[in-house]
């Protein structure tokens, strides 16, 4: 393959994919929301409705409060993991990360299981679930950043007469600010566009932009109102991203970045040990109990325990047009397809992004991140509007579900693979060329094996993300072939102990499947693989 063809492929395939499946649906939403004449007046009607104002207000409020609570609750653990070294530190970091990769539907249903009935549906439940999902972001971002801060700076402050609290406020906190800002903006964005949690835990009273788009489109069949809300959401997200970038740039402080082994010190005094044990233990309880209760509830039968709910999964049910067990199979097939698409598109894009540093590359890099900003609901809704006639009619095309899931996964694939490709020493490629390897052969012999593990990790992530994808899939999955999260959602909408039990059981299965793919990722990260 000539260098030209290869370049064309690495740029062409991802861009064509994005143009057709991301840009076109988004443009369709705009068209639907902002077309001329009385339609525009109707759009303004939607905007001025009190309900819209209420929804926007609640969306912003819950995102701000979720962010503040998450930082508050994650902070002690970030401090312990960012300042001390102890046996089990790596395990603690890994365990904290687990909730982050759990599907939102699973988290929502776990809190349904654990919260007292009074709190089950409402803003408190939403906030708690958001904290649960995002604690990992704060601990990882702030904790690892903290572990690179020069401890001598605080020591210097101490020799200058600053007490521990003073030194923390005036020295450590300003130094941590960039990491705190970065973590806060990620948590804010996730909470702002959170769908599954709000839809399940919000009940009929609490609605955010995301769930309201869904309500208008699916329950009210008011596509224009949904489109207008989607545009409001798009503007809000763009504003938030812009503000976050400005904030981080303003807070950035240069200076010494240490290696963890030089910075972290062992826990010495009993006070330090107690503090570490309490902050990590409390966090472990907060993260562990809901999941444990979820497993317990899935086994509850009447007063005792049994596998009733699991056994019922193979039988037809009034909640679905398929047996629940078929939903499990669907999910795996769809996620497999999505992973394949995401690996091809994201992998090729990673080659393009890593290959050069020209302006066009940065543009591609940036546009590949866009699906992250646009929410899953927006993608699903966009597909419904854009692909409702031949030749692409989402109702008759089963592969549309993997495509939309891949869209959500592609940014992760690029982010995982491109840095590995960039890190390859150019002289390795030169050495291969001098030894007789053609450019295509160099890619096969050098880039691919080195990136192989990253591709494996990316595949695991893509699979896990696709398995749990709910916001987009719920629009597109056909009633006779639901995925796991969709099936769980349908069961929750039906009364009856067995229906709820089956929802719990499916959530446990989904959790185990995601955990398995994460386990594969962790293995790939650690093992040294021989390639010859």
């Amino acid at each position, binding site marked *: 393959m000539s260098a030209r063809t290869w370049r064309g492929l690495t740029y062409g395939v991802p861009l064509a994919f994005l143009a057709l499946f991301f840009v076109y649906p988004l443009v369709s939403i705009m068209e639907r929301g902002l077309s001329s004449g009385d339609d525009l007046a109707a759009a303004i009607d939607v905007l001025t409705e009190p309900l819209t104002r209420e929804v926007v207000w609640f969306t912003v409020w819950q995102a701000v409060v979720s962010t503040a609570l998450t930082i508050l609750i994650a902070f002690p653990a970030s401090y312990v993991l960012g300042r001390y070294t102890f046996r089990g530190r790596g395990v603690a970091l890994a365990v904290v990360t687990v909730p982050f990769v759990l599907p939102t539907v699973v988290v929502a249903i776990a809190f349904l299981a654990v919260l007292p009935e009074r709190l089950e549906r409402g803003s408190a439940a939403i906030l708690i679930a958001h904290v649960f999902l995002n604690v990992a972001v704060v601990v990882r971002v702030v904790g690892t950043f903290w572990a690179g801060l020069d401890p001598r700076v605080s020591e210097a402050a101490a020799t200058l007469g600053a007490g521990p609290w003073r030194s923390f406020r005036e020295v450590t906190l300003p130094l941590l600010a960039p990491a705190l800002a970065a973590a806060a903006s990620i948590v804010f964005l996730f909470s702002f566009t959170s769908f599954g949690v709000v839809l399940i835990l919000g009940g009929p009273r609490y609605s955010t932009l995301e769930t309201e788009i869904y309500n208008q489109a699916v329950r009210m069949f008011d596509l224009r109102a949904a489109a207008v809300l989607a545009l409001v959401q798009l503007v809000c997200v763009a504003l938030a991203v812009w503000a976050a970038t400005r904030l981080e740039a303003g807070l950035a402080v240069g200076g010494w970045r240490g290696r963890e082994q030089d910075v972290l010190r062992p826990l010495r005094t009993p006070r330090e040990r107690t503090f570490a044990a309490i902050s990590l233990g409390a966090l472990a309880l907060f993260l562990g109990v809901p999941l444990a209760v979820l497993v317990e509830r899935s086994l509850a039968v009447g007063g005792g325990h049994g596998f009733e709910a699991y056994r019922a999964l193979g039988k037809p049910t009034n909640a679905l047009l398929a047996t629940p067990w078929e939903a499990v199979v669907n999910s795996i097939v769809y996620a497999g397809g999505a992973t394949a698409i995401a690996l091809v598109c994201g992998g090729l894009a990673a080659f393009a992004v890593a290959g050069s540093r020209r302006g066009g590359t940065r543009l591609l890099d940036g546009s590949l991140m866009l699906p992250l900003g646009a929410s899953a609901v927006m993608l699903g809704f966009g597909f419904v509007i854009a692909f409702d006639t031949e030749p692409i009619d989402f109702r008759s095309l089963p592969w549309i579900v993997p495509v939309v899931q891949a869209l959500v996964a592609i940014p992760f694939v690029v982010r995982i693979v491109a840095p590995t490709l960039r890190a390859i020493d150019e002289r390795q490629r030169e050495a291969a060329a*001098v*030894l*007789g390897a053609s450019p295509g052969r160099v890619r096969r012999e050098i880039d691919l094996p080195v990136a192989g593990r990253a591709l494996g990790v990316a595949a695991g992530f893509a699979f896990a993300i696709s398995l749990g994808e709910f916001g987009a899939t719920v629009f597109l999955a056909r009633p006779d072939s639901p995925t796991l999260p969709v099936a769980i959602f349908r069961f929750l909408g039906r009364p009856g102990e067995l229906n709820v039990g089956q929802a719990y059981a499916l959530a446990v299965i989904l959790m185990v499947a995601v955990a398995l793919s994460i386990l594969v990722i962790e293995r790939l990260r650690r093992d040294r693989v021989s*390639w*010859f």
Partner: protein
Amino acid sequence: MLRIENVSVSFGGKAALDRLALEIAAGEVVSVLGPSGSGKSTLLRVVAGLQPPDSGRVLLDGEDLVSVPAHRRGIGLVFQDHALFHHRDVWGNVGFGLRMRGDSRQEIERRARYCLDLVGLAGYERRSILTLSGGEQQRVALARALAPEPRVLLLDEPLGSLDRRLRDRLLEDLAKIFDELRVTALHVTHDRAEAFALGDRVAVMRAGRIVQVGTPDELWARPADEDTARFLGLNVRDGTAVRPEAITVRPVAPDQGGDGVVRRAVRQGPTVKLEIELNSGETLEAVVAALAHPAPGDRVQIEVDEHGVSELSVEGPKALHGFDR
């Protein structure tokens, strides 16, 4: 025969190679000796096909290589700091070039084993690159480059990152291997001892040009100009180059005068290098046997053997500019 004809390369307007010309005969080892930043690595990259020249030609046995891509040139390159493939074991590295040219499995096995034997690493086949010492990595890099029987072998500061004792040992091994295989090699280094030990001929390079080519003896006897003489470690005095070993030093009593005073005495293995400040204020370096040498502060009388003195040409290395065609 490798012929480099008037090759120029510049980066951002700054010339790295300036109409450089050099010829290497079949089976000959030429060492290019020059300070860092003189364009040595660029020269190798041009020959290997990793850096296109702005102008000039590279001919191998009469064939112009400039339009031939690196992977079809059949030229081996030992990189500075090795550039080994960390994702492959020793065997995967050494056999790489053989696989590229489509050798059979048995042939790869035979040839890779032979090359590992040659560099003294028999039995290392399955070792991971990360477990090797610096010297072992260098040997693997050499075996990897030699395995596909390159028409010319290029070596870029091959011993640069190793400690002194290891360098001396590898230097001997390299010389032996080159002799045995009769390789045609172009080797660049900033280290005089390395250049003189490996090169059948040594080419002195400065600012993108070759200023002088000759056997080590020829260079030592007749350096082309003052800078070259200094770079080789000769004294420069009144338009002549004076070899430090051609100076005889005799201590004299403090009140007897003499020609100068010893400022420093540095032991270099079996010899001692003396830095002598002459009465005129000039500094002279002399190398003497270490049995009984004057100490710093001693006044000395010096005598210069005229066989160790050569005239320096005033115009410098005009004839070496390029091939006149």
